[in-house]
C-alpha cells in the first residue's frame, strides 16, 4: 500500500516531485558542503592565518635589578626542542630563534657598526622522545620575508634591502667581521626593521659573537583556539577546575604558559594583534558559513513547502476521506510524506554527490587541498534532507490536517 502511495505520488505529482527533488539536491549539497567546510575551516584557516607571523614571542625573563644592569640576557638554544614536549606540542608549527647583536664590520676598508641577526633558515629540529625531526626555521614564522639571491651558508650573509641600498652593495660583495670575510648571498626584504640588518645563520652569529648556544628571543607560530571570554580570565585567579580547563584548551595564552614552563628563564607572551585578528576572522567566517547554511535551508524548505502545499491541496478529498475513516494526524502524515520522503532521500544522495564535487572545488580553490572529512558529507546530507522535509512539510501538513472532512468530501472547499 505504501509502495503504491509512493509510486502514485511520483507519477501523478511530477511538478511537485521535480521542485522537491531539485530544492533538496541544491539545499543538501550547499549546506553539507558548508557544514563540512565549517568542521575544517578552523584548522585550514588557522594554517592560512599563520602567514600573519608568529603569535608567541619568547624572551629572557628579566627580574628585579637585572633590568638595571644593562647586560643582555639570553635563552639557551638547547632548550628549544623542549617546546615540542608540551601538551599542545602538535599545534607548534613554526619555531625561529634569533640572536641579535651589533657587528663591527668593514667594507672596502671603511668601518661600520651593523645590527646583526642570526637565525635558523632551514632547521631539522630533533623532537625529544621521537625519531623524526621538525622542519622549521624563520620562514615558518615569517612567510613574507623575501630573499633576492640565496640563503647564506658558512661565512655568508644576507643584507637587509635598506642597508644594502644605502651602502650600494649587491650580491657577491663582501664584508669583513674581524678577520673573517663574509660574502653577501642575497638581499633581504621584510618590510620591517630587519631591512636594516645583516642576517646570517644562528650558528655563524653565535660563533663570531662568542655566544655559543645563546639566543636573544624566539618566535613561535602555533595553531590556537580563538580567544573567548574565559580565555581572558587571569589564570592566577582561576579555581583548580577552571585552570585545568584553561591549561588544556589551545588558547594562545595557555600555550605561551606551557612554553614558559619548558624554556628556562623565559617569558612567553602572545602577539595580541595577531592572536585577536585570527580569532575575529575565524568567528566571522564561521558565522558567515552558518548564516549561509541557514538561508539555504530556509530557501530550500520554502521551495519544498510551496510544492507540497500545491500537491496536498490537489489531494484534499483524499485527505478528507482519510480523516473520515478515522485517520489520525500521524498516520495520515506518514502516508502523505512517504512519497516525499522517497524523493528527498534520493535527492539527498544527489546532494551528497554534488557536495563531494563542491567541497573539492572549494577546498582546492580556497585552501589548496580538498576537504578531508568527506565521508561525513553523506550522513550530513541525509540529516539535512530529513530536516528540510520536516521543515518544508510542516505548514502544508498542518493545513491539510485541519481540513474538515464533511466540507471537503462535499466538494465545498
Amino acid at each position: 500500500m505504501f509502495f503504491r502511495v509512493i509510486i502514485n505520488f511520483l507519477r501523478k505529482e511530477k511538478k511537485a516531485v521535480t521542485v522537491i527533488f531539485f530544492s533538496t539536491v541544491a539545499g543538501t549539497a550547499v549546506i553539507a558542503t558548508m557544514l563540512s567546510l565549517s568542521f575544517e575551516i578552523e584548522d585550514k584557516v588557522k594554517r592560512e592565518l599563520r602567514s600573519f607571523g608568529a603569535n608567541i614571542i619568547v624572551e629572557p625573563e628579566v627580574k628585579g635589578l637585572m633590568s638595571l644592569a644593562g647586560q643582555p640576557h639570553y635563552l639557551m638554544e638547547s632548550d628549544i626542542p623542549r617546546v615540542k614536549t608540551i601538551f599542545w606540542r602538535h599545534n607548534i608549527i613554526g619555531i625561529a630563534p634569533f640572536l641579535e647583536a651589533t657587528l663591527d664590520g668593514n667594507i672596502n676598508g671603511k668601518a661600520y657598526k651593523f645590527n646583526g641577526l642570526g637565525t635558523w633558515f632551514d632547521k631539522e629540529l630533533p623532537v625529544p622522545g621521537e625519531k623524526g625531526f621538525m622542519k622549521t626555521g624563520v620562514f615558518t614564522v615569517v612567510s613574507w620575508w623575501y630573499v633576492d639571491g640565496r640563503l647564506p651558508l658558512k661565512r655568508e650573509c644576507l643584507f637587509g634591502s635598506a642597508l644594502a641600498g644605502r651602502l650600494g652593495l649587491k650580491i657577491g660583495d663582501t664584508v669583513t667581521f674581524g678577520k673573517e670575510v663574509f660574502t653577501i648571498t642575497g638581499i633581504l626584504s621584510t618590510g620591517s626593521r630587519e631591512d636594516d640588518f645583516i642576517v646570517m645563520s644562528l650558528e655563524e652569529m653565535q660563533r663570531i659573537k662568542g655566544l655559543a648556544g645563546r639566543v636573544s628571543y624566539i618566535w613561535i607560530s602555533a595553531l590556537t583556539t580563538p580567544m573567548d571570554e574565559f580565555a581572558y580570565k587571569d589564570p592566577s585567579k582561576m579555581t583548580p577546575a577552571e585552570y585545568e580547563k584553561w591549561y588544556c584548551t589551545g588558547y594562545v595564552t595557555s600555550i605561551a604558559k606551557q612554553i614558559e614552563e619548558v624554556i628556562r628563564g623565559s617569558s612567553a607572551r602572545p602577539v595580541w594583534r595577531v592572536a585577536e585578528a585570527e580569532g575575529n576572522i575565524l568567528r566571522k567566517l564561521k558565522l558567515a558559513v552558518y548564516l549561509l547554511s541557514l538561508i539555504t535551508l530556509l530557501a530550500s524548505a520554502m521551495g519544498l513547502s510551496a510544492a507540497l502545499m500545491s500537491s496536498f491541496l490537489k489531494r484534499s478529498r483524499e485527505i478528507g476521506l482519510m480523516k473520515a475513516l478515522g485517520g489520525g494526524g500521524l498516520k495520515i502524515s506518514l502516508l502523505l510524506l512517504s512519497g516525499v520522503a522517497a524523493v528527498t532521500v534520493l535527492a539527498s544522495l544527489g546532494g551528497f554527490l554534488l557536495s563531494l564535487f563542491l567541497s573539492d572545488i572549494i577546498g582546492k580553490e580556497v585552501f589548496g587541498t580538498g576537504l578531508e572529512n568527506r565521508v561525513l558529507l553523506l550522513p550530513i546530507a541525509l540529516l539535512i534532507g530529513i530536516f528540510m522535509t520536516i521543515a518544508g512539510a510542516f505548514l502544508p501538513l498542518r493545513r491539510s490536517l485541519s481540513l474538515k472532512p464533511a466540507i471537503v468530501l462535499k466538494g465545498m472547499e
Partner: protein
Amino acid sequence: MIKVRGLKKVYPSAVALRGVDMDIQDNEWLSIMGPSGSGKSTLLNILGGLDYPTEGSVSYDGKEITTMKEDELAVFRRENIGFIFQQSYLIPYLTALENVMLAQYFHSIVDEKEAAEALKRVGLSHRLHHRPSELSGGEQQRVCIARALINSPKVLLADEPTGNLDRENTRVILELLGELHSNEGFTIVLVTHDPYVAGWGKRLLTMEDGRIIKDESFHS
C-alpha cells in the same frame, strides 16, 4: 443507544438544523428522508463526528461526542463508525483490497487476509486487485461497504449510498446491507431521498427545513 438533543447547525449563509431531538436504538435500521437542503446530510455528519453542531448534543451510550476534540473524534470514528458515501470515495490509485486495508491501517494494523475476506463477503473476491476505475458503480459501492465494515463498527452511516446506482444495483446493495445488518447486528442510519431505499429501514424520519417532521416505524 444514540441520543440527539436540541441539535442546531448554523452556517454563515444558511441554517441547516433548527433543533433536532431523537433517539436511535442499538441494531436499528433508521432511514432519514427529505428534500435537498432539509439538513439530513448535516445531521448524518454530526452523528458521525465529521462536523460539530452549533448547539445541542449527541451521545453514544451516554458518551458525549460534540465536546470531543478533533483527535478524540478521529479515534471515536475509527472505533465506532463506518461510513458509506453517495459517491464511492475510494483512493483511485489503490486496489479494492488496498482501499479496505487503508481503513485497517487507520484503525490498527493491516491484515490482507481479513481485508480479502471482507471483500469476499460483499461478493468481490474476484476483484481484489482491481482499481476503482476498473470496477462498476455497484462494485465500487460494495468496496465502500467492505471498507466501512472491516473494523466491525457499532454504527454504519450511509449518505445516499445508492444515489448514483441504477435500480438493479441499488437492490443488490440494499440486500447486501440487509444481510450484513441481520448477521452482524450493527445500527444503520441511512440518508436518502428515494422512498424505495428508505423503505428498507424499520423506521423512517422525514426532515424538512432542518427539522424532523415525521417519525414512523415499520414492523415487518
